[in-house]
């Protein structure tokens, strides 16, 4: 499917979706409360997004406009139709919560655990939200921009 066709399908399914085509792929911005339903449609609807190949998070707090902003980023592709989209969901940095998609794409289970420990995002209804890599007694979220570790890091 071309980007125009993808946009038509997505707008029909979720009129509130906001598009951005500046990158390599079509970017779709979705509200956090609409995310779970939209994710299920992505997997099972016409788009048939059966492959979640990247799940990560961005901390914008070092930028002037993003003081209280985390963004979840999901990259999807369809192995049958070969189209790709990027879905971005803005989260409140002081209380980041989003529904898990690990029941839709099984790979998200580990990646959400990683984002959970490195950014502190709570994935609601995740089956096993434990730390993945860090030690059990680790304090703080090391990939957040305001993370400080005076023992191991110098301030630049």
């Amino acid at each position, binding site marked *: 499917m071309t980007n125009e066709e993808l946009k038509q399908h997505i707008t029909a399914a979720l009129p509130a979706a906001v598009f951005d085509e500046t990158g390599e792929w079509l970017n779709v911005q979705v509200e956090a409360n609409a995310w779970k339903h939209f994710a299920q449609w992505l997997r099972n609807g016409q788009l048939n997004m059966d492959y979640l190949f990247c799940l990560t998070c961005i901390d914008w707090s070092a930028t002037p406009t993003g003081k209280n902003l985390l963004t979840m980023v999901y990259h999807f592709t369809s192995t049958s139709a070969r189209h790709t989209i990027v879905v971005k969901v803005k989260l409140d940095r002081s209380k980041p919560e989003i529904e898990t998609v690990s029941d839709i794409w099984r790979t998200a289970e580990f990646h959400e655990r990683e984002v959970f420990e490195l950014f502190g995002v709570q994935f609601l209804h995740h089956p096993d939200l434990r730390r993945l*890599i860090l*030690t059990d007694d680790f304090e703080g979220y*090391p990939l957040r921009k305001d*993370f400080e*570790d005076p023992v*191991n*890091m*110098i301030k*630049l």
Partner: protein
Amino acid sequence: MDNNQNNDLKSASSSNGDFPGQTYELPGGGIIISSFTDIVNWARSNSLWPLTFATSCCGIEMMSVASSKYDFSRFGFEVARATPRQADVIIIAGTIVNKMAPVLKRLYDQMADPKYVIAMGACAISGGPFFYNTYSVVKGADHVIPVDVYIPGCPPRPEALLHALITLQQKIKSGLTREQIRAENLQP
């Protein structure tokens, strides 16, 4: 620099030439005069088996040195062993992170004496050119285990690793290692 390296290569490859002691040819045999420690060190330095241990990209250079083009078995680093109990030297080829540090310590403890350590590359020396300002990286493997020879570079050239291996051999031949000195001091 190049000349030095060539000289090192030459002297090490003709290791029979630098036998520590005098030999006297006599009818029906010969007499060797030397000290026992010198002969032990000479023998040890020419049979150092490295541990198969690499934590990042320096490991690729180390494998290159082990393979036929550079071939460190020419100098007695005969074969890389997959168990610390059969290894004499550990080449720390790569970044050591906080979670890897206890593993490195355990591997080192499991190696039989005498044991030697080479810190290969910027990460093993100081944490590295990329990841040093991080919550997760040990700023130099010598925070965990004692290091005999350091090789700068990112990654070091295979020739640099060969030079370090030969430097380690010369260090062993020249006398006691840190561990041996420590063990002697412990004895009354």
